[in-house]
């Protein structure tokens, strides 16, 4: 096993690479299954399992290694023999089970939990399958037998110019013993023979059948390897050369005299019948399996050039991407954030107030410009295409369709759209849940669809696109849609309705499904779990600053749209003062700001304050009242009004005064404090004060 003391980077690399390989494998398998055959992907699957076997063995994860080994054996057989009667679906299921096992164990390893599950049952299953496959093909397949025959027939010829010619001045006999556990002792012996041929002639060695005889290794392990040869080199030189043999434990070299040479010649004639000695190095014999390798590689190359951008960049043979430790990127992000704050602290320092500093401000603008660019680049580094996440859904769709006896086709659009790495990690689970929901409750069973006159194959579209400063992810199914009345009555039951029912728009009704405690499922299925699932989905989405919307049409389908802000961490904002507190409003949400006269204020029927602007009435949110802040400025004439808009409505915020516009780094409120309604985070202002960042969407909805 590798050295104990510095395990961490190797575990990390093992987890990273194996996870990546499992994702690749999963996708390849599902695609192969669709084209009902593995022909183009056998080699890839074989190689992935071979790699995992090796890596896992190095890390002593024997359960993973053994499982990978059995799958490797299966695919080796499939590759070499190409039997006709393979049931692709069965093989896919078995290997997918294997993938699941490995993924599960790797996940445990990643979380420092011991990987101790046994894969024995699955290994047994695979071995049995392979065995029966071999038995079935024993009679029909001439390919197999001919292959083994050619291997038997391979003859090896002595390269030496003939021991009897007595070339070389000295004769030696060497006894070698290799270190325990070095493996393939027969080939090591072969290596010695090959090496000695370069300095003279090899006369005899024991055991003789180093290449073909499996027992040779065992004999060498127990008794050592003996070799007699002739050369011009002296004893010192010979010892020196032989000492360079890897994994050499013991070496003894004896000088042979003429008597012995005579004895040897006699022995030679006796052994004429058993003439299997060495392969001539000039004869380049490519074994049939290797030819196969080359053909498969060509196919593999063709396939890989068409693969999605996420897969390894094999084609050019050179790497244009590198993998970076995520912790380093996080550090970089934090530092850029600190930099923005520091720059603000310098350029907006209160000590500079009122001083004539034209050149200074010119330089400050340049500094800001560069900092902005730096920030943009760093943000873009953290951006990752959604492709990998989206492709994971293929497996989910396949498994669920199979289990629920529905036919569903997944269409992925816009997978090259990029989002911040943080978001990718957070939305993976919600997406899975939403897709499961669509298939479980949305898409109808085949008969039902046919009765309705729909295509028996259900369509599920997973789309990602950029719009303004946001990324949209849309999940659309053509299933049975949401039942508005059912939702309304359930919402009523659970006391979730706050507005008058007639005023609720369809979209608002549908969005009840995201509220905690809501569920119209009579049977809680294995897949979608309880109704609480949906509100956890919402929570995950909100944690990364996203919002979800639902739209639906009965019998036609349901569309769930999720919006994420592109740049999480640094935004432009206008800071306002309320009493001693500071609040920052994202500039992107601000329409305008102005001072107000009493005359413009009206009240609606519920006593809520409204303000008239150019003929339209907008609700007012008094921050000092809303958050119960002490301030002297309570008269609307004395303060300032900022008009903001979110996706649903436009409203006005009343504060004491405007402090200024700047770039702010969004810092999350500490975990200990659960955010108040409408606070998205906080930031450090240039003067060292902390300002709370308002979430315009949530403040008034």
């Amino acid at each position, binding site marked *: *096993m*590798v*050295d104990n003391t*510095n395990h961490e*980077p*190797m575990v990390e*690399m*093992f987890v*990273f*690479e*194996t996870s990546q390989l499992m994702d690749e494998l999963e996708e390849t398998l599902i695609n192969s299954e669709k084209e009902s055959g593995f022909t183009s992907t056998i080699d890839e699957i074989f*190689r992935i399992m*071979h*790699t995992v*076997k*090796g*890596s896992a*063995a*190095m890390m*002593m994860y024997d359960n993973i290694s053994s499982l990978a080994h059995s799958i490797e054996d299966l695919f080796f057989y499939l590759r070499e023999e190409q039997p006709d009667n393979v049931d692709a679906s069965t093989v896919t299921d078995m290997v997918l089970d294997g993938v699941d096992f490995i993924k599960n164990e790797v996940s445990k390893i990643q979380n420092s939990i011991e990987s101790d599950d046994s894969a024995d049952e699955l290994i047994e299953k695979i071995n049995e399958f392979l065995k029966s496959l071999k038995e079935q093909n024993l009679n029909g397949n001439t390919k197999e037998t001919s292959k083994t025959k050619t291997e038997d027939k391979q003859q090896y010829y002595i390269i030496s110019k003939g021991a009897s010619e007595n070339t070389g001045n000295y004769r030696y006999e060497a006894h070698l013993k290799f270190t325990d556990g*070095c*493996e*393939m002792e*027969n*080939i*090591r012996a*072969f*290596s010695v023979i*090959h090496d000695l041929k370069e300095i003279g002639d090899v006369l005899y060695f024991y055991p003789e059948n180093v*290449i073909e005889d499996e027992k040779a290794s065992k004999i060498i392990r127990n008794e050592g390897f003996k070799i007699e040869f002739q050369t011009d080199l002296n004893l010192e030189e010979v010892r020196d050369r032989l*000492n*360079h*043999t*890897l*994994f050499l434990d013991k070496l003894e070299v004896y000088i042979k005299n003429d008597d012995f040479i005579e004895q040897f010649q006699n022995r030679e004639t006796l052994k004429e019948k058993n003439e299997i000695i060495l*392969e001539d*190095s000039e004869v380049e014999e490519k*074994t049939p399996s290797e030819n196969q*390798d080359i053909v498969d*590689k060509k196919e*593999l*190359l063709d396939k890989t050039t068409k693969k999605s951008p996420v897969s390894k960049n*094999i084609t050019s*043979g*050179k*790497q244009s991407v590198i*993998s970076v430790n995520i912790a380093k990127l996080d550090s970089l992000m934090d530092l850029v954030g600190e930099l923005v704050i520091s720059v603000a602290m310098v350029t907006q320092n209160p000590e500079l107030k009122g001083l004539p500093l034209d050149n200074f401000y010119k330089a400050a603008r340049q500094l800001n410009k560069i900092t902005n660019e730096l920030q943009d680049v760093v943000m873009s580094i953290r951006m990752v295409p959604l492709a990998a996440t989206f492709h994971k859904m293929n497996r989910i769709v396949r498994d669920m369709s199979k289990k629920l006896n529905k036919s569903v086709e997944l269409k992925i659009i816009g997978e090259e759209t990029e989002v911040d790495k943080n978001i990718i990690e957070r939305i993976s689970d919600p997406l899975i849940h939403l897709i499961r929901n669509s298939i479980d409750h949305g898409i109808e069973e085949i008969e039902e669809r046919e009765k309705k006159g729909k295509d028996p194959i259900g369509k599920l579209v997973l789309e990602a696109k950029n719009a303004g400063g946001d990324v949209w992810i849309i999940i659309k199914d053509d299933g049975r849609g949401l039942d508005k009345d059912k939702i309304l009555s359930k919402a009523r039951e659970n006391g979730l309705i706050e507005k008058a029912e007639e005023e609720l728009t369809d979209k608002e009704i549908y969005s009840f499904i995201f509220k905690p405690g809501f569920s119209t499922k009579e049977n809680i299925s294995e897949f979608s779990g309880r109704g609480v699932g949906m509100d956890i989905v919402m929570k995950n989405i909100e944690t990364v600053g996203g919002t979800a919307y639902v739209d639906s049409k009965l019998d036609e389908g349901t569309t769930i749209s999720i919006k994420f802000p592109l740049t999480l961490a640094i935004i432009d904002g206008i800071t306002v003062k309320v009493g001693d507190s500071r609040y920052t409003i994202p500039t992107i949400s601000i329409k305008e700001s102005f001072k107000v006269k009493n005359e413009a204020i009206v009240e609606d029927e519920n006593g809520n304050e409204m303000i008239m602007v150019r003929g339209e009435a907008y609700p007012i949110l008094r921050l000092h009242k809303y958050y119960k802040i002490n301030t002297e400025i309570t008269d609307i004439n004395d303060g300032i009004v900022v008009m903001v808009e979110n996706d649903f409505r436009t409203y006005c915020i009343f504060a004491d005064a405007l402090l200024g516009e700047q770039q702010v780094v969004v810092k999350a409120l500490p975990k200990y404090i659960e955010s108040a309604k409408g606070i998205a985070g906080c930031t450090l202002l240039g003067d060292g004060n902390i300002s709370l960042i308002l979430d315009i969407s949530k403040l008034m909805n």
Partner: protein
Amino acid sequence: MKRVLVADDAAFMRTSLRIMLERNGYEIVGEAENGIVAFDKYKEVSPDIVTMDITMPICDGIEAVRKIKEYDKNAKIIIISSMGQESFVREAVLAGAKGFIVKPFKEENVIEAIKKL
């Protein structure tokens, strides 16, 4: 004799070898994920030693050994193989590899082997 080129298509193996070798005072002057890259890198960095995995895509280890030996007959190459790859290892030896290590291996084995080159 301390500059090493590591060739293996598995990033994990490259990292493992890198860690082992660097811990023992060797310098990794290049990494390659297939035989073609290995050959290119060899020409580029002229390492003292090469560790070569056998099974790599596009161009395997044995072919790479041939190419490198053709370019530099004194190249010192150690093959890294799995169990059951005897015929491949044999070919590699014939192609000019100095020796081989079998996976899974321990750090001591690798270091011992490399020292001998």
